[in-house]
C-alpha cells in the first residue's frame, strides 16, 4: 500500500549561537514519516529532540536543509506563513497543556479556528465543530468549564481537542503525560492510540519507554544525529500491566 509522506526532512541542520561558540543541535538529519504512522522520538536531554520537535512544529526554522510537510517545502517560509502552517497543518499537545486561563474549554478549542484566515468559519460552525471534538475526547459536558476547574487529564483532553479542531495532517505531542498521574496518562495515550487507529499521523516526543511503547516506530536521537530508527518491538500492553501492578501495591 503506497502511503504519502507527511514529514520528509533532508540534511536538516540547526546550529545555535554565533561566532566562535556554536552548538550543532541537529546535524544533517534525514527522516521520513508517512501518513498514518505513530512515531516516537526519543533521546536523552541535549540530544536535539526538542529542537527537532520545534522545527517539525514550524515554531523554528532550520539553519540548513529541507523540510517538506505534506509535500510542501516549509523550510523557507517566513513567520506569517509558518503561523498559517501551524494553524492548519499541525496540532500541538504540550506537556503543560497550554490552555488559555479563565477561558472556557469550548473557547480554547475554538482558538485555532479564530486564526484560520483561509476558511472563514462562521461563529455557529466554530461552536459546532469545537463541541464535536470535545465530545470525541469525552468532555462534552465540560465545555463551559475553565481550565482551573478541570483536572490535569481533562485539561490535556481539551488540548487534544484543540489540536484536532482544524483537522491537521500532523499531531505533535511533546511529553503529553509528563504532568499527569498514570491513570490520566493512560487515558491520554489511549486517545492518541485511538486517533492513530483512525488514521492520524502522530509524532510523540518522550523520554519514557512505556509511552514510546504505544508507537509503531521509534526514532532515537543522540548528539544531534539519529542513532536508531526501528519499528517498535514492544507491545503497548506493557503500560497496562504496569498499571495493574501499581494498583496491587
Amino acid at each position, binding site marked *: 500500500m503506497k502511503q504519502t509522506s507527511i514529514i520528509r526532512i533532508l540534511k536538516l541542520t540547526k546550529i545555535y549561537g554565533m561566532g566562535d561558540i556554536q552548538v550543532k543541535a541537529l546535524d544533517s538529519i534525514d527522516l521520513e514519516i508517512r501518513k498514518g504512522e505513530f512515531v516516537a522520538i526519543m533521546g536523552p536531554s541535549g540530544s536535539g529532540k526538542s529542537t527537532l520537535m*520545534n522545527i517539525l*512544529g514550524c*515554531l*523554528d526554522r532550520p539553519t540548513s536543509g529541507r523540510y517538506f510537510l505534506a509535500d510542501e517545502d516549509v523550510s523557507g517560509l517566513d*513567520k*506569517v506563513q509558518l*503561523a*498559517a502552517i*501551524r*494553524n*492548519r497543518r499541525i496540532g*500541538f499537545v*504540550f506537556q503543560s497543556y*497550554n*490552555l*488559555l*486561563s*479563565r*477561558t472556557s474549554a469550548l473557547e480554547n478549542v475554538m*482558538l*485555532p479556528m*479564530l*486564526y*484560520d*484566515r483561509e476558511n472563514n468559519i462562521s461563529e455557529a460552525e466554530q461552536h459546532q465543530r469545537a463541541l464535536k471534538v470535545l465530545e470525541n475526547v469525552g468532555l462534552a459536558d465540560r465545555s463551559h468549564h475553565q481550565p482551573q476547574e478541570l483536572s490535569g487529564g481533562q485539561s490535556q483532553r481539551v488540548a487534544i481537542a*484543540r489540536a484536532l479542531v*482544524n483537522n491537521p495532517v500532523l499531531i505533535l505531542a511533546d511529553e503529553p503525560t509528563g504532568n499527569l498521574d498514570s491513570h490520566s496518562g493512560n487515558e491520554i495515550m489511549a486517545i492518541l492510540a485511538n486517533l492513530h487507529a483512525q488514521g492520524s499521523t502522530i509524532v510523540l516526543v518522550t523520554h519514557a519507554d512505556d509511552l514510546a511503547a504505544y508507537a509503531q516506530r521509534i526514532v532515537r536521537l543522540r548528539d544531534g544525529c539519529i542513532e536508531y530508527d526501528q519499528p517498535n518491538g514492544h507491545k503497548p500492553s506493557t503500560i497496562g500491566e504496569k498499571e495493574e501492578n501499581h494498583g496491587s501495591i
Partner: protein
Amino acid sequence: MDLSKVIQIAWKGLNRNRLRSLLTMLGVIIGVSAVIIMISVSTGTETTIKEQIQGLGTNLVFIQANFSRGGPGPEQGRSTGGLVYDDAFAIANEVNGVTGVSVEQGSSQQVKVGSVDIADVSILGTTPDFPQVRGMAVANGRYFNQAELDRKQKVAVLGASLASELFGSTPPVGQAVSVGNTTLTVIGVLGAKGLTSGVDYNMVLFTPITVMFQKFTHNEFDRMFGNHVRVIYVQVESQQKMEDIIYQIELLLVKRHKVTLDSPDFVIRTQEDIISAQEATSAAFRNLLGWVAGVSLIVGGIGIMNIMLVSVTERTREIGIRQSVGATPNDIRWQFLTEALLLSLVGGLIGVLVGIGGSWLFGALGEMRTVIAPSSILLAFSSAAAIGIFFGYYPANKAAQLDPIEALRHE
C-alpha cells in the same frame, strides 16, 4: 480575523483584570475631563465678557482720551489735553449717522434718605441719551432731558436696587435724596440690569453731567477744568456706517483738538475691537489650560504604555499559546493595540461624562460660569484615542515580536 472578534478578545483581556484596567484608565479619565472642564470654564468666562460688552448697548463707538501721546507740552500750545464735554455735543451735532451720544463722569458720595444712609454710592453724571445708548430702560418716572441738563437742574435717576434700598416700598419718584451736601429730586427709577463690564448699574445714582461737574467733582482743580470726560459713548445708526462715522469723528476731534491724525490725543474703539482684544487674552488663557490638560493626557498615555508592557510580560505564555495555534505577529499586535485603544477610548468616554458633569458642577456650585464646547469634547476624545494608539503601539509591537518557543517556555 474580523474586527468584532479582535475587539471581543481585547475586551476579555481587559475584563480579566478589571481593577488594573480601571486604574490604567484613570489617567485618561482625568486628562479628558480636565480638558473639557478647563475649556468650559474659559469659554464661560469668554461668553460672560462678550455679553457684558454687548450689554453696554448696540452699535457703540467708544472714544477715550489718550495721554500716552506725551502729555501737554508748552511748545505745542496744546489746546485741550483730552476729551471735554463739548466734544460730545460737537459729535452729536456735526457728525451724520450718530443716533446718540453719552458721556459719563463718575464719583462716589454718601447718599441719605431719612434714616437710611449709604456710604460710597457710585454717582454717574450722564447725558439724556444715556438710557438709549447704553440700552437701559426706565421703569418708573423718566430720565432727565436736555433742558434739565442745560439748567443744571438737581435731579436724580436711581438704579433699581439703590431705589429699593433707599426707599423700600415708598414710591421714590418725587422724593428728595441727599447726595453729599446737595439735595436732589428723584425723577425716575431704572429697570433692573445685570452686571455690565463689572459695574452694577442697579446701585448707581444718575444725575445730569453738568450737576456732576458743579457739585460732585473732587477738588477745586477738577471743578475749574471740570469739563473733562473719560469716555464718550457714541451710538451710530448701523454697523455698516460705523467705519465712515468713526472717520468723521476722527476728523472732527483732530480739528477741535488741533492735533494731527497721525498722533491723535484720543482713541476710538468699537465693541468688536474690545471683544477681540478680550478674546485674544482669553484665547491665550485657554491655550495654557489646554496644554496643562494635554500634559495630563500624555501622562495618562504613559500609564497605559506602562501597564501594557507589564501585561505583555505577564501574558507571554498566552502569546506563545496563541502563536502555536496560528496567530501571526499581526494578530498579536492588533490584540494588544486594541486593548490599549479600548482602555483609552473607554477612559475617554468616562472622561467625557466626568468632564460634562464636572463642568456642570463647577457652574452650579462655584461663581464660575461654564459653557461646554462640543469641539472640546471631540478634541479630548480624539486625543485620547490618538494617545491609545501612540502609547499602545510599542508594547503591542513587543508582544508581536516574541519568539513562540521562548514565549511557550515562559513561566
